[in-house]
């Protein structure tokens, strides 16, 4: 079974082990230690870590298409944001009549805009199952339509990157409009509770953090399952020699479409988990700069490794937190320099460094990466 195969891999076991260990440690340090203790992890930090894990899942999704399929999507922020909006709409409906204007049906911003009734696309979002399904289906459908059009016409490489960027840019402009019915500029915010749990309590925050960790684990296993299957090898084949793959009888566009849609759905899940933790979703998540930032997380961590994406996402965002707190002006310099340095000097990313070190220290059992295993056995 393709989904269980990764569980037998050492690298995946290691990754899951570290992830679950981290989840447990954070939970224990948060719950068991009193607030004054230097090792106590505050609710704020738990949420911050939860945010990093969302980004990590998003980065894994991008790595799946970029690393293994060779599709540099500069629009994955759009899928992330769509997932986020689906969750945001659910959370908005959960507010009910507790909003400023006290309307039982309409969210505050609609009352403010003098809308009389709920737009049709808001129907159903008061039900959790529907909203959660939309978290997967909305980004999935967009990826399906967009990907079907693009891959069918064999738009790849730089062209695809540019039009994915145009896609998220167009969506950003659209969501900025009040008439779209997604809160315009301000987006959706002032959430109260999720599945009946109050979002402002520490326990709910911890729960969301753990849920994100589990989502990351599942997302990682799904991606790993795909890349270790024969389909994963076909993906790599598409990435490196698209025409050759076609002449072997594979429908390259369908392979691309499948992986792209899976990736978009994972990005949507990441967005959906992100929104209740940060408490807001607005059109800035659609901004092209955010999408391209995701790519640099992956590049820093190391393409086509999946775990590298996780490392990259967490490192860059930790650095961002530190920088923006200490010297906010320097952050964009640092980020810009990161883009340049990683691409020029570290094309394999951190994962590449790790692999090289491991190879030089013990010339033996490498990780499951095909190239290193083969080198090791030779």
């Amino acid at each position, binding site marked *: 079974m*393709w989904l269980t195969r990764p569980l037998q891999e050492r690298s995946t076991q290691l990754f899951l082990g570290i992830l679950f260990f981290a989840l447990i440690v954070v939970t224990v340090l948060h719950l068991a230690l009193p607030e004054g203790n230097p090792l106590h992890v505050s609710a704020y930090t738990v949420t911050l870590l939860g945010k990093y894990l969302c980004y990590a899942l998003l980065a894994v999704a991008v790595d799946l298409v970029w690393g293994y399929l060779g599709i540099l999507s500069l629009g994955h922020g759009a899928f992330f944001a769509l997932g986020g909006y689906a969750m945001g709409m659910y959370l908005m409906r959960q507010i009910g009549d507790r909003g400023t204007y006290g309307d039982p049906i309409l969210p505050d911003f609609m009352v403010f805009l003098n809308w009389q009734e709920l737009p049709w696309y808001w129907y159903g979002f008061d039900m959790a199952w529907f909203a959660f399904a939309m978290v997967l289906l909305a980004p999935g459908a967009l990826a399906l339509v967009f990907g079907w059009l693009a891959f069918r016409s064999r738009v790849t490489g730089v062209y695809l990157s540019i039009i994915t960027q145009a896609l998220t840019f167009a969506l950003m402009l659209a969501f900025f409009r009040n008439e779209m019915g997604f809160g315009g500029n301000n987006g959706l915010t002032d959430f109260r509770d999720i599945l009946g749990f109050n979002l402002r309590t520490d326990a709910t925050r911890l729960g969301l953090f753990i849920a994100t960790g589990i989502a990351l684990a599942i997302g990682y296993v799904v991606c790993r399952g795909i890349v270790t299957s024969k389909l994963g090898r076909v993906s790599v084949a598409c990435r490196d020699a698209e025409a050759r793959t076609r002449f072997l009888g594979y429908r390259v566009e369908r392979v691309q479409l499948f992986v792209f849609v899976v990736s978009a759905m994972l990005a949507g899940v990441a967005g959906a988990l992100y929104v209740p933790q940060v408490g807001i979703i607005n059109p800035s998540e659609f901004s092209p700069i955010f999408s391209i930032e995701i790519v640099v997380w992956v590049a820093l961590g190391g393409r086509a490794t999946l775990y590298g994406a996780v490392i990259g996402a967490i490192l860059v965002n930790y650095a961002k937190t530190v920088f923006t707190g200490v010297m906010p002006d320097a952050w964009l310099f640092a980020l810009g320099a990161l883009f340049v340095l990683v691409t020029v000097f570290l094309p394999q990313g951190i994962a590449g460094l790790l692999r090289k070190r491991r190879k030089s220290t013990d010339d033996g059992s490498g990780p499951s990466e095909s190239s290193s295993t083969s080198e090791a056995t030779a």
Partner: protein
Amino acid sequence: MSIMTELAARDRVFNFLTPTDSPVDVRHGPILYLEDVNVSFDGFRAINNLNLTIDDGELRCIIGPNGAGKTTMMDIITGKTAPDTGSVWFGSRHNLLTMSEPDIASLGIGRKFQKPTVFEALTVFENLELAMAADKRVFPTLTAQMKPKHRERIEEVLETINLQDLRDRPAGILSHGQKQWLEIGMLLMQKPRLLLVDEPVAGMTEQEMERTAELLTSLAGKQSVVVVEHDMGFVRSIARKVTVLHQGSVLAEGSMDQVSNDPEVIKVYLGEEA
């Protein structure tokens, strides 16, 4: 061509009358049939009224100077390039012009490129695995399991192409000649009815060339093979029937001796090389 004349054409076989997923039908003659094919790029006629017939089980060599249209012809057969006019049939049932590259490949036409293209990031073994005849749709590929008989088949081909020792190395590290072999191996894995082989011996040593010649001749009979080659010695060593292309159309056809004595051929091609 207007619709009326198209409908009135007696030799026309309507698409809806031709079952597309049936096996290749060669009872009524050739396995590959090109008629009046024309292609031009920006006014340059790469293929000019080309007519070509390949019989089932035949080994055919195609020669011709640079720009004669050899590679373009392969592009047309495999669906990469659509001709401006003409018809291309695989067996008597499959109109190749209406099919996509993967469809044509699944039908049983394998192709080796001029520049050897293997998947460099994958191992030699994985390259062969991907080429293996199998259900190549997305979900079957996702859930595919390697069965012992598959492994045996790959091992068998590995032996044929003499790359057993490099089975788990990435294909990127292979030498040029080894890549040629690997690509031939991938062709074998596909078990095609028709092999299109573009310059198979470029970059090979004398012995490797001999083995390739042996391999290709042994394939003929069971499968049809079309070889495009520049190396005259190699062509002479395998050729039964040779077609000379010049400026996008057939200049001469026959045995190697017939062709090499044809004054036209000598003038445009052999003459220059000799």
